[in-house]
């Protein structure tokens, strides 16, 4: 049995263990900085210190999630005898062929905190960006017509959005993410409605652009419909004939709840921007040319609204991460043993005053990811305001 590590040794070992992440980050930064004048808004990010720090934090976790299999020192689910609640740097009594230390200590079930933290990033990054993306597509496809067409449609949609927003988020989670709900049709029906939106959105998007060239239109719309409905059947109804797309009821429940909470806020933002942009001259010009309403909304208004939307997208991924953590913290919709950050914090809080490391590691991980996303959003906002 080896000696326990001291803190400088732990930090060195962590740095060494994370080498794939450092390598990937160096490559990304080197390429991006050398090409930054040709990369548009993304390149401009490297002019702002805040933006670079944020971007670094975000890609750190993205690469940690990607290379998690190479980084982890132990199986995140395995329990090692004699390692219960051990402090960071403790040596395994009987390491065998494996890594000889628990770098960040052991939790109450004698599992490796470091490996669970790294694997937890995978759980978060598998859901948060996609949930934010679906929320955005829904918010955009309802917010554009609400702002542009207005009238009864606007009144109705705004009322529904306000209805959802008046719901305290935590209450909605308690009600919507529960084992009893998973067995009912509610998550499936909600998924059926929510996931249909992206398919409709891309169909409308391409149809509005190419309906004057039927050949091209048919090809593009056909491909979108084929892929979209294929994914839709798998994700929403778990009925993918090829078994490629699919979501466990647990995951679907969480996903639907998070999208449902986020979409109305995006809707409000898009509607507000649309109301502002539709008075511009280029919209009037498009109307005079005789363009259809969907073309104007999707190809005139939307591209000009991209600045604030990109910024909000970063913030929303961060917010979704916080929401997922909240769900995990209350043990809602997570698989038992799952290494996601929220439920690890929840498990660690029982022994918090005696052995804080088990909860502290995922807590700081979650905070650094969200902080990175917020700083990235701030950097993007600053840079997009410059021109």
């Amino acid at each position: 049995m080896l000696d326990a590590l001291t803190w400088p040794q732990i930090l060195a070992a962590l740095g060494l263990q994370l080498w794939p992440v450092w390598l990937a980050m160096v490559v990304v930064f080197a390429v991006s900085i050398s090409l930054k004048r040709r990369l548009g808004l993304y390149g401009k990010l490297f002019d702002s210190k805040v933006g670079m720090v944020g971007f670094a934090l975000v890609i750190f976790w993205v690469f940690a999630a990607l290379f998690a299999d190479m980084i982890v020192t132990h199986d995140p689910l395995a329990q090692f005898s004699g390692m219960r609640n051990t402090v960071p740097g403790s040596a395994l009594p009987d390491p065998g062929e494996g890594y000889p230390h628990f770098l960040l200590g052991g939790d109450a079930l004698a599992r490796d905190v470091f490996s669970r933290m790294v694997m937890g990033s995978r759980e978060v990054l598998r859901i948060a960006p996609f949930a934010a993306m679906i929320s955005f597509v829904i918010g955009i496809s309802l917010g554009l017509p609400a702002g542009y067409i207005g009238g009864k449609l606007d009144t109705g949609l705004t009322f529904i959005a306000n209805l959802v927003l008046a719901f305290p988020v935590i209450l909605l989670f308690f009600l919507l993410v529960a084992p009893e709900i998973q067995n009912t049709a509610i998550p499936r029906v909600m998924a059926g409605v929510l996931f249909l939106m992206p398919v409709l959105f891309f169909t409308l998007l391409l149809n509005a652009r190419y309906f004057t060239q039927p050949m091209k239109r048919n090809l593009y719309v056909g491909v979108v419909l084929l892929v979209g409905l294929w994914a839709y059947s798998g994700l929403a109804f778990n009925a993918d004939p090829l078994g490629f797309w699919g979501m466990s009821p647990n995951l679907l429940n969480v996903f639907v709840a998070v999208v449902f909470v986020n979409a109305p806020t995006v809707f409000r933002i898009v509607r507000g921007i649309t109301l502002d942009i539709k008075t511009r001259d280029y919209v009037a010009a498009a109307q005079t040319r005789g363009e259809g309403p969907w073309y104007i909304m999707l190809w005139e208004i939307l591209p000009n609204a991209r600045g604030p939307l990109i910024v909000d997208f970063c913030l929303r991924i961060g917010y979704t991460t916080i929401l997922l953590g909240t769900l995990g913290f209350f043990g809602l919709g997570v698989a038992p043993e799952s290494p996601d950050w929220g439920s690890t914090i929840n498990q660690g809080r029982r022994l918090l005053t005696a052995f804080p490391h088990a909860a502290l590691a995922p807590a700081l991980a979650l905070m650094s990811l969200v902080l990175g996303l917020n700083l990235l959003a701030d950097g993007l906002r600053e840079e997009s305001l410059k021109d």
Partner: protein
Amino acid sequence: MLLFLARRIGVMLVTALCLTFVVFYLTNLPAKLETLAKTQAGARISDAEVASWLDRNGYNQPMLTRYGEWLGVVPGWTREAADGSVNGRCYRLTSVSEPGAAPTRCGLIQGYWGNSTRFRADVADVISSRLGATGILMLWVLIVMVPMALMVGVLAGMREGSRTDRSLSTFAIASTATPEYVSGVVFIALLASSTVGLSPLLVNWGVIDGPVLFQGNARSALEKITFWNFFLPVMTIALYGMGYVARITRASMTEVMTQQYIRTARLKGVSFRNIVLRHALRNALIAPFTVIMLQIPWLLNGVVIVEVLFSYPGFGWVLFEAAANNDIELLLAASVVAVVVVLITQLISDIGYVYLNPRIRIS
């Protein structure tokens, strides 16, 4: 103004009705009722027994009827047994048994909130006693959060781009990136743990008598609030809410500082201090006011997390216990309270905005 108010309240009532119905629907799903039957009548009862239990207790009517009963607009169900005794929703809630003695309608409107299965007590009593505890917590959170947020926002916004602005903005961003369950854990580890953090050091130096500096458990605050047992929960909630308010204040302040009348004041020779305090501050605080009001429903999130984390038995803790134990009546009542709080703060924020903003008030 009156018309605006009437319309706003009308929309609010419709929203409240819709939301309570959604909550009612979700808490009264067949699966949840089955769980309820099993917790009340025994975990091992058969499906037929579950069905008969549900039937006996009036759960077999259509959802809308039951919602009406619960609300108090539809007469409560009654059932006459073979021996002539009468049973029914209102008989149970008023605990009378002679036929005809109970009121016909007994719901939320009449003040019958039902009974909690988790606490074995009247829901109205449970909620009202817990709301007080949460009210005190919220009060302290607002006392800490609002001045801090406004100060950070105003200091950052008065000289846009300065070093103060940059560091305070970064602080605000960091605070919005730290949800309550993260800051709570960090605070406890740092300040309330007897093995790590500051407390063992302070004990070593003989600065403090007890084993820890701050209490990681706020249950004792129910009897007597002290700085040491209440500081951490209050800070945990205030920190997350603060960043957002501070950023809004900053944005509003920077906008005001570029206005013509500020330039005029500056050219007149008014000192910077007076410009900020006399001319800018009042106009800059319109936007933060509405945001602070809208922030209160968001604080509810934090309240639930913090009350669970610090075991402070307030409203949020009740909400969590009700949800975790499938306590339908209690969860419903707690949801109603939560929704009403949200809607009232929205209303106040709307009225406040109109009242504070002369441009809207006059037109």
